[in-house]
């Protein structure tokens, strides 16, 4: 069996999640590599869209873009509709699936890419003020949503792809940048979101779904040589476990060779 890194494992698992003919919203970095890998293996008729305002992107190996709006991504695309109109295609319902990562992910699939913690200014007896204090005086100011909130709100399906670390998998995110199931149950629909769902979380430890009723995260499959205890150790909340936990097929030589040719400098694969 060929050795592979955690990033390569994530890319392969995400790529396998895509079906031929889908329209996929890809971010730069690992998600982009996953989509290109899928396109070059089992899903040649995938349409890739990118938030800079590109439909039908193609990527040149070795010249991967680092932002979502470079000419590297527009090369041989089919349309450059502009950012606002690209997201309006998502709102209309044309985007089937999207990949996303995040600094914090919680048990209901909410994602935080905005702020971590409060340095001062929060008030324990006034939750509304405390929330504002968190936001305006954060311990760590992260880059922010970009298109992540729109993607989570508007695409038919969201797949979260991320490294599995205890500090990342928290019971409740400090700030809901991108909505998963919010407080669980039917909270997402109650908030007014008519479309979209978090269908899966793919990590370097396994594949996770969400309970149909509580919308709490559930372990569905483990990657080779990973145990349920490894998952529990690296998760900051009580993760549900499916009755039958599957084991995934490891990345193949072909999959790894394609990934490595795309990012020969290993700028994204690490």
């Amino acid at each position, binding site marked *: 069996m060929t050795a592979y890194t955690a990033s390569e494992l994530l890319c392969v698992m995400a790529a396998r999640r895509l079906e031929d003919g889908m329209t996929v919203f890809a971010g730069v970095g690992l998600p982009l590599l996953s989509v290109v890998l899928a396109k070059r293996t089992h899903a040649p008729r995938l349409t890739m869209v990118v938030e800079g305002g590109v439909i039908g992107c193609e990527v040149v190996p070795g010249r991967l873009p680092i932002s979502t709006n470079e000419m590297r991504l527009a090369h041989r695309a089919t349309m450059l509709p502009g950012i606002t109109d690209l997201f309006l295609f998502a709102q209309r319902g044309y985007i089937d699936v999207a990949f996303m990562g995040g600094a914090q992910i919680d048990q209901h699939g909410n994602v935080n890419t905005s702020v971590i913690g409060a340095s001062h200014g929060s008030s324990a007896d006034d939750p509304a003020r405390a929330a504002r204090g968190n936001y305006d005086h954060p311990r760590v100011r*992260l880059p*922010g949503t970009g298109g992540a909130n729109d993607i989570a709100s508007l695409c038919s399906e969201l797949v979260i792809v991320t490294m599995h670390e205890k500090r990342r998998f928290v019971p409740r995110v400090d700030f809901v*940048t991108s909505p998963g199931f919010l407080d669980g149950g039917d909270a997402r629909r109650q908030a007014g979101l008519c479309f979209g769902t978090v269908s899966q979380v793919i990590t370097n430890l396994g594949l996770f779904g969400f309970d149909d009723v509580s919308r709490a995260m559930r372990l569905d499959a483990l990657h080779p040589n990973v145990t349920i205890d490894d998952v529990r150790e690296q998760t900051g909340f009580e993760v549900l476990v499916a009755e039958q936990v599957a084991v995934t097929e490891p990345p193949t030589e072909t999959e790894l060779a394609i990934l490595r040719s795309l990012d020969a400098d290993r700028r994204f694969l690490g």
Partner: protein
Amino acid sequence: MIKPGDFVEARRRLAAKPRGHRDKLMDAAEAVRLVQDGDLIAVGGCCFSRPPMLLIREILRQGRKDLTIARNLMAQEMELFLVAGAVRTLVASWMGPGLPWGLSRPLRHYVESGEVRFEEWSHLAIGLRFRAAAMGMPFLPTQSMLGSDLMGVGSAQTMTCPYTGETLCLVPALFPDVAILHVHRADRYGNCQIDGYPHMDADIASAATTVLVTAEEIVDEDLIKRQPDRTVIPDLAVDAVIHAPFGAFPGECYGLYETDFSHLDAYAAAQDEKGLDAVREYLDRYVYGPPTHQAYLDLFGPEALARQQRAARELVGGDPL
């Protein structure tokens, strides 16, 4: 500053300014005198794509302060605004130096201390705020942002749709005092054409009271008239036109030159070593130092510029890769 959504005041401002067909060609220094302390400035392009760097440098050189800056994705150019002490509020969906370089140090420094407020909206929300303004309307509805904590950051509202009963998020029109944009070609009256990514520039131009445009090339009005379908910003909306080859550099201008990633690598490495002092040194060398745009380009040298032009031509110039 026009209050979010105040379409009546925004229209009054347009009525109060000269809008006739006239020669608007001028230099950047003259154009930037139209920018006031405390203005809300919308910056065109997106991330490294078509940032209006000449106008940004000139605003900093002229020492404008207490600015509110709106841009969908902010990158290195906004680190310069922050460290120069020019900005009070950022209205954006994202800010970072670029994926390979992690979090923005200046963003963390100024926002975590509370000196600067980051008013975060989703990417589409920023786009719809400009579009609502471009439409001369107070707001637009969307299915984005609902249920998220972004609803509590800015002035988004919810309403019950009168037709379906569904809950909608409303985002208020964003009317900038000034828009600064970089385009591929313009005539001296301000008719602008853009190649490649349109980003939000056309909406931003219609949304703003005052519009300053730098162009890679100043073309004869006749060329515009021969391809009017390519014009995305009409002269009606434009107040100043500045000739600026490489006006987005070190960012990219679609088809003409690629982002100088090696320059940004060096900038990031300097910050790793010296923190914000590296940005102060960068401001001295690249912003306050060079007296002209040409002097700025000379800091990079013709070889570096030619290299970035070749890279662009390889990608979108039709040469097979």
